[in-house]
């Protein structure tokens, strides 16, 4: 126990400890004892009773000490004033005639008892006082002789009892007030604690909000290559990041709260979009075309679309704009966010790439035209027919020229897929004849390679929505691949069947197979399986990437299953067209 705590427990006047209460009695008792010893006129009548009284006070004091420090026995503290009363009674009796002087000492334990909670202690105090005052008669074994002697043993206790009752009442009121004050203090403390907690929470929330705001601001500021605009539901701009400033040439204070998003668009583009949406242009008078701009986002579908932005100097840039909705805590739309990327350069690069591919294609096809054309003239020359051997040589040259031509075609197609300029000429296609035609054209190659072709296609039409030429190209690629990778004596099986929602074309071979670790890369451009390069199978690795692109463009899937040394199956799944 710390010293401060010890001092508070012993000497507190608000909640006096038994030792504090007892200390007054002890002090005055000691004064009385000293006076009895020192003042010659004061005589002892019985030294043993004086000792007994002193011992009683000592016992009471020890008990007061114990009750002060041992909390489990504090309920015994009430014995202390009782012991005091009896001890003072004995001391007073021992002092004989002089004892009358010390009767006043009784007031201290009486006050102690009277201040305890409960009226019964007034009675105890009165009885105790009465016993103490009548003690000389008790020890002498005689009853008081005179009425005044009786009255001393009764009247004084009655006076003490009355005083005790007053004290008891005052104490009781004081205790009630104390309880009330304590309760109020506790309530105040609880409220104060609540207020402090609330303030703390407010402070934390405010700090979190500030941090979130700082984060949002720093993210917006960090986006310098994209413009980020925010608007309310009418299109009035309230967010304008440095990217927007850089892209469109206007500072935030020139735009926020003053300009509308649609002002940075070309009105004909907005009108065109409105027409596509079959939507009357302009939701409000102030921002014509804005509705067309946010139509998709308004319906909860974020959208990325190609638009043109008009810069502050009047120049126009091509942008890809992602539009998303801003919502409040109830989920209601309160505005929109427009994140735009300048694609002017990307479009130019794409155009140059297309131009380059076109040029290369042209430059390669023109000499091939001469090669193939003149080879044909030579083999067709009826006037000067060639020998069998010469025709065979020409055949080799022609086959390789066609191979080169296919490669040029594949490169061009790959470039078209890469630049998204590849389109399908779709119609209702019966897949069965497409597959059969591919098999038929592959027959000579299969025969030359000693590979058997097995067809498993029924007679019922299997209809998909697609481009017959491209689908034929996909089948050609898969079948010619299968023949290339199957050793002499092997079998290539091509099947086509329809399920409820899909058309499934499978090309399975009994070839060299593809290692499992390479299956993921199989559809990448220019990838060649290790088994293919080891076996020196010719090719550049474009066929499967092209086939995949064709299947994907038909909203289908191309899968592969393979086992090295056993064979490979390619499974093309296309959405079935239902009547």
């Amino acid at each position, binding site marked *: 126990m710390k010293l401060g705590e010890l001092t508070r427990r012993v000497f507190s006047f608000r909640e006096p400890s038994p030792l504090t209460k007892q200390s007054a009695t002890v002090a005055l008792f000691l004064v009385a004892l000293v006076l009895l010893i020192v003042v010659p006129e004061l005589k002892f009548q019985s030294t043993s009773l004086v000792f007994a009284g002193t011992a009683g006070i000592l016992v009471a004091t020890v008990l007061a000490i114990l009750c002060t420090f041992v909390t489990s026995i504090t309920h015994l503290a009430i014995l202390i004033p009782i012991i005091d009363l009896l001890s003072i009674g004995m001391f007073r009796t021992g002092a004989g005639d002089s004892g009358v002087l010390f009767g006043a000492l009784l007031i201290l334990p009486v006050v102690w008892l009277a201040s305890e909670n409960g009226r019964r202690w007034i009675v105890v105090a009165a009885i105790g006082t009465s016993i103490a005052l009548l003690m000389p008669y008790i020890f002498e074994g005689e009853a008081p002789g005179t009425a005044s002697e009786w009255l001393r043993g009764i009247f004084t206790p009655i006076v003490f009892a009355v005083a005790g009752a007053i004290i008891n009442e005052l104490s009781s009121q004081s205790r009630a007030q104390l309880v009330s004050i304590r309760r109020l203090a506790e309530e105040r403390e609880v409220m104060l604690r609540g207020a402090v907690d609330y303030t703390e929470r407010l402070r934390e929330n405010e700090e979190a909000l500030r941090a979130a705001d700082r984060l949002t601001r720093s993210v917006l500021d960090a986006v310098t290559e994209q413009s980020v605009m925010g608007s309310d539901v009418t299109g009035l701009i309230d967010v304008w990041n440095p990217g927007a400033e850089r892209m469109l040439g206007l500072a935030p204070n020139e735009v926020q709260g003053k300009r509308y998003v649609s002002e940075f668009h070309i009105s004909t583009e907005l009108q065109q979009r409105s027409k596509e949406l079959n939507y009357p242009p302009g939701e409000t008078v102030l921002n014509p075309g804005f509705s067309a701009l946010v139509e998709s986002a308004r319906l909860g579908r974020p959208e990325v679309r190609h638009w043109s932005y008009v810069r502050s100097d009047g120049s126009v840039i091509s942008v890809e704009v992602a539009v998303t909705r801003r919502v409040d805590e109830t989920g209601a739309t309160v505005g929109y966010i427009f994140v735009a990327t300048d694609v002017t350069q990307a479009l130019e690069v794409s155009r140059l790439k297309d131009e380059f591919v076109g040029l290369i294609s042209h430059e390669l*096809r023109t000499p091939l*035209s*001469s090669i*193939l054309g003149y080879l044909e003239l030579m083999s067709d020359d009826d006037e000067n027919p060639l020998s069998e051997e010469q025709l065979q040589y020409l055949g080799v040259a022609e086959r390789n020229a066609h191979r080169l031509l296919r490669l040029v075609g594949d490169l061009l197609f790959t470039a078209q897929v890469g630049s998204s300029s590849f389109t399908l000429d779709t119609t209702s296609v019966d897949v069965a004849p497409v597959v059969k035609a591919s098999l038929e054209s592959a027959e000579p190659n299969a025969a030359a390679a000693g590979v058997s072709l097995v067809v498993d296609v029924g007679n019922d039409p299997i209809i998909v929505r697609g481009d017959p030429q491209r689908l034929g190209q996909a089948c050609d690629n898969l079948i010619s691949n299968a023949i290339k990778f199957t050793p002499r004596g092997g079998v290539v099986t091509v099947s086509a069947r329809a399920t409820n929602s899909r058309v499934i074309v499978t090309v399975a071979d009994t070839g060299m197979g593809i290692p499992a670790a390479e299956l993921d890369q199989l559809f990448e451009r220019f990838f060649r399986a290790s088994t293919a390069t080891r076996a020196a199978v010719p090719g550049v690795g474009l066929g499967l990437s092209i086939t995949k692109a064709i299947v994907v463009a038909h909203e289908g899937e191309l899968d592969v299953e393979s086992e090295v040394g056993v064979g490979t199956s390619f499974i093309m799944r296309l959405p079935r067209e239902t009547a």
Partner: protein
Amino acid sequence: MSDETPARVVVADDDADIRALVAIAVRRAGIKLVADVATGDAALTAIREHQPDMVILDVSMPGMTGLEVTREIRADSTLAGIRVFLLSAGVTEAAMQAGMDAGADEYLIKPFSPRELATRISDALAAWSAE
């Protein structure tokens, strides 16, 4: 066109080997080559000079392209009725569509078979005669 007078054709291609190849196909189709030139401008001059029944134009040529020459022919009423064959290494649908939009009657992709070209020319002339 009568059976006695062979149809007349102007061929334009910047590649001399291709011009020679086309010339052979033209001969095999039994028509008369009145001019073979290497540029679009020369082609237009030759067309105006010779008033041929047919022209076979490469699309990509220095100066005027085959498409531009075709448009000029279609815009010139004095050249009405000339059959225009375009030859091109452009294999995309967009390229073909551009050729047909310019006013070509046929669009042939390089490389072409001389045998097939001769057949196409003969077929086109036969259809023309039947009109």
